[in-house]
């Protein structure tokens, strides 16, 4: 190599190194109100539209054989809520716990665990995919959410199902910020979307959301709210939290978590 081309190469290399260090130049994107970020986040609408267009409503998440359950289900997020109303239910074995399902429905109803257990059950061995990147396979038993929605008579103008939870994630000046989540009615009525009260052959453990959590198998883990307190059928997400449709969505995560 000639001296000239070597110097040229080194200069180019230095410029390249500097350009690789541009990481910090894009930190404004971390600002949740940044308009460029909002534009980039628009790709989630495209993903949502594409998946809704391509997926048949009876397309199922893969179900695995029992031999695929090789470890306890890894709990994530809240694992032992300290909220007094939750602890009262926990010590009494969820005897008086009721799940009110209301909003845009013809026959609002509150379900006890026994009510839900008396309805047709679905058991599925599925893979839980966390937004962080890990996966864990477990067996889930519960009542299909669509049976519950049919029983209360969800109205045609309903667009979303909101899951309100017991667990406090943080405190704000106006009080506790509780976990919540929401999905569209397509996901809510999917055959594998169940309100699960059983896991790996036993009752749902506290760490995994006792007494009841939702399984939404075509989306990521953060959609599958635990410690359910109430279900609302609604046509708007605005009154909930910061209005983005979920605790993590309010903090910058995508509402549609099918990817």
């Amino acid at each position, binding site marked *: *190599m000639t001296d000239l*081309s070597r110097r*040229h*190469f080194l200069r*180019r290399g230095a410029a*390249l190194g500097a350009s*690789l*260090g*541009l*990481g*910090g130049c*894009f*930190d404004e*994107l*971390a600002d949740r109100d940044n308009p460029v*970020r909002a534009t*980039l*986040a*628009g*790709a*989630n609408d*495209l*993903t949502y539209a594409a*998946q809704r267009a*391509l*997926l048949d409503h009876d*397309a*199922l*998440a*893969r179900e*695995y054989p029992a031999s*695929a359950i*090789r*470890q*306890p289900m*890894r709990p994530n997020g809240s694992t032992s809520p300290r909220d007094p109303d939750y602890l009262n239910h926990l010590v009494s074995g969820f005897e008086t716990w009721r799940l009110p399902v209301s909003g845009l429905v013809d026959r609002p109803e509150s379900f006890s665990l026994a009510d839900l257990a008396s309805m047709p059950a679905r058991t599925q061995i599925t*893979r839980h*995919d*966390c*937004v*962080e*990147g*890990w*996966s*864990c*396979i477990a067996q889930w038993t519960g009542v299909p959410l669509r049976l519950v929605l049919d029983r209360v008579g969800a109205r045609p103008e309903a667009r979303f199902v909101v899951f309100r939870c017991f667990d406090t994630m943080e405190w704000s000046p106006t009080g506790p910020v509780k976990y919540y989540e929401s999905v569209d009615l397509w996901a809510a009525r999917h055959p594998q979307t169940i309100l699960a009260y059983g896991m790996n052959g036993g009752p749902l453990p506290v760490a995994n959301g006792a007494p009841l959590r939702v399984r939404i*198998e*075509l*989306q*990521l883990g953060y959609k599958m709210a635990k410690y359910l307190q109430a279900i609302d059928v609604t046509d708007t997400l605005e009154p909930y939290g910061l209005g983005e449709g979920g605790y*993590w969505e309010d*903090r*910058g*995560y*995508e509402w549609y978590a*099918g*990817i």
Partner: protein
Amino acid sequence: MRNKASLTLDPRTPERIPPSPPDGRGRLVYRQSVWTRLTHWAWAVALFFLLLSGLQIFMARPDLYIGRQSGFDFDNAILSISAEVEDGALVGVTDVFGWRFETTGYLGVVDEGGVPAPKTFPGWMTIPSGRDLATGRVVHLFFAWVLLATLAVWLVASLANRHIRRDLALSRDELRRIPREVTSHARLSFRREPRYNPLQKLTYLAILFLVLPLMVLTGLTMSPGVNAWAPWMLDLFGGRQTARTLHFLLMLALLAFFVVHMFMVVFAGSVNEMRSMITGWFRADTEIPHD
């Protein structure tokens, strides 16, 4: 109309080749069509953001596994980047196939404002520089669409203007020349031919028809929605976690390509190469074959 459209897409019509300049520097050849140039720079931008936001996403779970799930009660990890405390000091540790490397300063424990901090990658390697999975995903999934759209545009244009058949496909003769090309490249001797040489063709074919499509497919295999639409992808790659591992390895392959690509640009004449990728015009040493 259709014939006319494909004619205008074909850049190397005889009248676009000017005569040799008198100074004997070789003649200018119109080498890169506007489609090749546009898609090239779209990829450059998209892959830059995909790399740095992808590393951000990886920081949320800096482990790679083989199989359907992540082993918490069993060990199926092939790579783990972590921080450990040794004698009261933070030590960055990278575990690859059971081999343990101390990587303090680069991986696992990095400098954060002069203080060693437990973090997978230094700030300059990720977008944003701090830990922020949500923003990493927003950036990554946007540019994933850009990458996919660019691949589609390139494929349609390159079929229409015969870029693939004319410039990338290898003739039998070129395949025979490969060993000779390898030795001449190893001696860092490069000729400025108007056309891609066989090794260049092989590399571009591998990137465009193997690495980038596999990158898209392994990425899609991580989507629970896509899994329900195309469960065969899970079988093709041996499970979601293997797909995630392959996605990472393909990133390393692209990075290796990028390094060699830059090296070749510099050694083959950076001004000439850059001009051809910006304006389309390339100065060749040799005569243009009349075919």
